[in-house]
């Protein structure tokens, strides 16, 4: 875990004091809402349907028990007893009072947390692989590099007022668990032929109203130069990104319009200049940061065997647990998707429990996933049964990772001022329509729901995606198939005319039955859809 140094702490504390003064001026009327709005957004404070919403940054989705407990405490003392984990590995509080916000931020600062740059046209929270540092398939832990980017991008004077928001993901494994190619910039750690560590750089991906898979912009940039290279990427975007039309202001539009080759050439030219400026940190600084992400002391001689005699535990093991890179240990994903529940929501008591389990069984580490779940990354196999029992008792024992019930859903019209339709009730109905045994029979199926075209629910990347729209004042839902946020990234295609809320649940069921009738050995829904195309699904749904 990264620990703030005196500069980090001083910056965050100063920001809290600054925002406290801004809030006081707003409440006194010295500042209008038009003046205040950009300032509150820079501190993660939105005004949503029912109240102010505070989005707290969880850098690259990593936090410890002390920080998790603080989130629970804020949920209990200042909100309504729960929080919502987001697709950007952050946490949102839905019922915040403006007058309380400075105190909340001050409390967050005591545990090295903040809400800075969780909104606005700046570089947002850097996201990463939730299995980072524990996965057997990674070249290196991506989090030290993500932390470097956090420091580089925080309050970056040149990139605080970009044409539009900017999202970066960093991973270190071949399996993409972070939707890398659907980011403005995606960085994948690789080694070149000489064995040197560096990054593949993808740029211009994204979702929203114009979904695009990012093209590869550079096959290899050395880890010693990647900050300069990113500076060049952002400079070219900042210079040419369209500020005249917010719907065309993301980097994906720029790269699409000028072409990846032209963008690449301009970045290279800028890079030749930038790398003379000495922006990349000295090796000692990277080593200092990397040391804080060192693997905790795990006993490689710990027993690997797991007693699977409890059938419910065995089902949970098969769904939620994968091997750690150190023998005798596992990575546990806690599902925040109980049948009929609200995806990503956790009560203060549940958040506290997850903090307890992290401290007791996972070397005080937790991760938040972009699929709105929570990970205990370093659990001894011998402790898995105790972990499961505690989770199950707290309503956190669902065994549905990557199955139909593991739905990503944005807050939708139940909470969000931008939404056109509700997302959560659909997720609830779908998870209830398909019981656990049926979900296991269907196999991997990533179902994602957004309540508007901004696509916070990643519907474009769903094997099955659902988009809520407003049709003459009524909620209507478009269904798309064939999307993926993984290493085989693709954008789903709309299958046909939209549906009512109940109609789309029925349509999903028909599509799944079509898949079950067509699938070949080992095929996921996505594989079958890609093999046979949309026609059989269309025929079944619109018959």
């Amino acid at each position: 875990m990264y620990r703030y140094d005196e500069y980090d702490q001083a910056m965050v504390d100063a920001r809290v004091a600054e925002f406290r003064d801004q809030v006081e001026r707003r409440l006194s009327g010295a500042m209008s809402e038009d003046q205040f709005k950009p300032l509150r957004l820079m501190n993660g404070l939105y005004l949503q349907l029912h109240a102010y919403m505070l989005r707290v940054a969880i850098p690259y989705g990593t936090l410890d028990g002390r920080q998790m407990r603080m989130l629970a405490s804020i949920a209990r003392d200042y909100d309504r007893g729960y929080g919502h984990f987001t697709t950007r590995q952050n946490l949102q509080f839905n019922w915040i009072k403006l007058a309380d916000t400075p105190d909340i931020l001050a409390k967050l600062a005591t545990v090295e947390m903040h809400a800075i740059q969780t909104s606005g046209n700046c570089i947002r929270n850097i996201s990463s692989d939730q299995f980072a540092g524990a996965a057997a398939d990674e070249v290196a832990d991506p989090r030290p590099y993500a932390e470097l980017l956090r420091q580089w991008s925080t309050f970056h004077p040149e990139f605080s007022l970009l044409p539009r928001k900017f999202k970066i993901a960093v991973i270190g494994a071949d399996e993409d668990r972070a939707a890398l190619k659907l980011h403005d910039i995606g960085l994948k750690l690789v080694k070149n032929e000489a064995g040197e560590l560096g990054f593949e750089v993808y740029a211009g991906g994204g979702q929203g109203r114009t979904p695009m898979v990012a093209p590869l912009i550079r096959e290899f940039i050395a880890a010693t130069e990647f900050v300069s290279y990113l500076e060049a990427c952002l400079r070219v975007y900042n210079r040419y990104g369209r500020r005249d039309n917010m719907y065309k202001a993301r980097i994906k539009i720029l790269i699409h319009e000028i072409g990846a080759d032209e963008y690449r050439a301009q970045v290279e030219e800028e890079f030749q200049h930038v790398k003379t400026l000495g922006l990349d940190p000295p090796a000692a600084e990277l080593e200092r940061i990397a040391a804080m992400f060192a693997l905790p002391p795990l006993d490689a001689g710990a027993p690997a065997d797991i007693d699977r005699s409890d059938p419910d535990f065995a089902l949970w093991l098969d769904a939620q647990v994968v091997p750690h890179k150190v023998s005798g240990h596992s990575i546990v994903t806690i599902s925040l998707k109980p049948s009929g529940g609200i995806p990503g929501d956790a009560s203060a008591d549940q958040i506290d429990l997850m903090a307890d389990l992290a401290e007791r069984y996972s070397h005080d580490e937790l991760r938040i996933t972009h699929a709105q779940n929570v990970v205990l990354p370093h659990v001894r196999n011998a402790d898995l049964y105790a972990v499961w029992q505690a989770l199950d008792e707290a309503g956190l024992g669902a065994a549905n990772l990557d199955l139909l019930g593991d739905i990503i859903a944005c807050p939708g019209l139940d909470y969000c001022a931008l939404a056109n339709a509700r997302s959560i009730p659909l997720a609830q109905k779908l998870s209830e329509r398909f019981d656990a045994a049926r979900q296991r029979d269907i196999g991997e199926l990533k179902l994602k729901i957004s309540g508007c075209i901004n696509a916070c629910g990643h519907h474009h990347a769903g094997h099955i995606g659902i988009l809520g729209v407003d049709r003459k004042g009524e909620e209507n839902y478009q269904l798309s198939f064939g999307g993926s946020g993984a290493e085989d990234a693709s954008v789903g295609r709309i299958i046909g005319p939209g549906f009512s809320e109940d109609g789309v649940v029925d349509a999903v069921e028909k599509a799944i039955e079509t898949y079950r009738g067509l699938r070949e050995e080992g095929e996921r829904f996505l594989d079958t859809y890609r093999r046979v195309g949309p026609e059989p699904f269309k025929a079944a749904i619109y018959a």
Partner: protein
Amino acid sequence: MRLITGNDLATGDVIWWTGSDWSRHVAQAVDAGKDGEAIAAREEAALRVNGPYVIDATPGPLGPVPLHIKDRIRASGPTVRPDLAVQPLDAKAGNWVI
């Protein structure tokens, strides 16, 4: 009929113009007629409401009902958390949100 709604500046609560003040209950909202925008501007300047706007509604047996689903959800709270809903003034009121 036309209602004025917005959020309480300090708490963020959804509030409705009653003709003389602001209420958390849409049932107490009144038809602002043609004066909606002017009242909204005056009240916002006085810091009694944040981000006010005028919406269309229809009269119902228990008070005004906003026409658009977004405003009906604002009036009652998230449909998926009835425990967090704004409790109606009339305990016998049915669910008219959706």
